[in-house]
């Protein structure tokens, strides 16, 4: 597992049905591009988050492919329509096979 990876998500605790809510996500990750070399001239192997998804009650909201040029600690902010009370589930996929998950409940209010 890559070191120091910690997902963070900011979602409102409640929202009105039909509203577009703003979702912010940030995962700390070094996003090693695979282009750099270490002091001895050896290539530092690529190690990035290559995919990010958000699902709401099992239905996909956003599915992102990340490429090596994306900077360290990738941050995503997007709007999602809020149809009913439920759970937003966030998943990040690491090159090394690790999967980081986070979930947030949003109530009608």
């Amino acid at each position, binding site marked *: 597992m890559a070191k120091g990876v*910690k997902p*963070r998500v*900011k979602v409102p605790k409640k929202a009105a049905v039909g509203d577009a809510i703003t979702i*912010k996500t*940030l995962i*700390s990750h070094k996003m090693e591009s695979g282009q750099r070399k270490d002091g001895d001239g050896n290539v530092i192997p690529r190690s990035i988050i290559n995919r990010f998804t958000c699902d709401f009650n099992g239905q996909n909201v956003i599915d992102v492919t990340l490429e090596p040029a994306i*900077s360290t*600690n990738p*941050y995503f902010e997007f709007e999602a329509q809020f149809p009913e009370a439920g759970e937003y589930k966030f998943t990040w996929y690491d090159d090394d096979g690790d999967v980081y998950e986070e979930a947030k409940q949003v109530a009608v209010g």
Partner: protein
Amino acid sequence: MKFKALTAAAALLAVSGTAFAGGPDDDTLVLNGEIEMVTKTAAPEHMENIDEIISGWHFRTDETQALQMDDFENQGMIFVDQAMEVWNTAEGSEGKSCADCHGDPADSMAGVAASYPKFDADAGEMQTVQMQVNDCREENMGAEPWKYDSGTAVNMDALIASHSRGMPVNVAIDGDAAPYWEKGKEIYYTRYGILELSCASCHEQNYGNYIRADHLSQGQINGFPTYRLKNAKLNGSHSRFKGCIRDTRAETFSAGSDEFIALELYVKSRGNGLSIEGPSVRN
């Protein structure tokens, strides 16, 4: 308030054309919609050449400014989180963590960053936050000291600073601190390097003007440690001093040296009255 900063963008473009390009803007810094920060105020009495002191935040673009207004978007807070883990981890021969003695840093560290560097009568020297932390590590924890301005040390510095945000900088410059302050002042006004530039050449006589494509600020350090977009990590004030002196093409002092400790005290005292912002976001 964030709304204001964003909508002010269009207005700003118009204003900055007529005002001097690269100068400070008139936005208001409110942290997380709660803490209103003092980012412009009357200069402390000891300053001879400047009437109003201005945080470096005002010299940045609206996008960079917005990053600092919300802890979630401020990537410096990632490193504060990492420091929090270190805070709670026992280390050294005594098997103690920071938390064992100091508890929750939100209580025990409030106001610390605002009053440091501070003269320590027991040690008989001027101490920065990082020196104090290392003293504690060696004497109370039996742990190895951290290298000055290294990643872990500067992260801890930021954790401590984050609990003073919104409090006014108030470092003592009289009494035992006076000789250090005088030394710092002398360094501030000394021209270094092949380019023969002093701190004052840029940050006192030319703040608000461009240095190549970048804006010169007043060089205030109330926002340190600073998360810089250019290197995606936290940067200590001594590293910043070093970078500046290097840019004058001089041999620099090193982070943690007596010269930089004195300079930190002097520069910090030039910000007496501004709110602590660390970890701030700059480019």
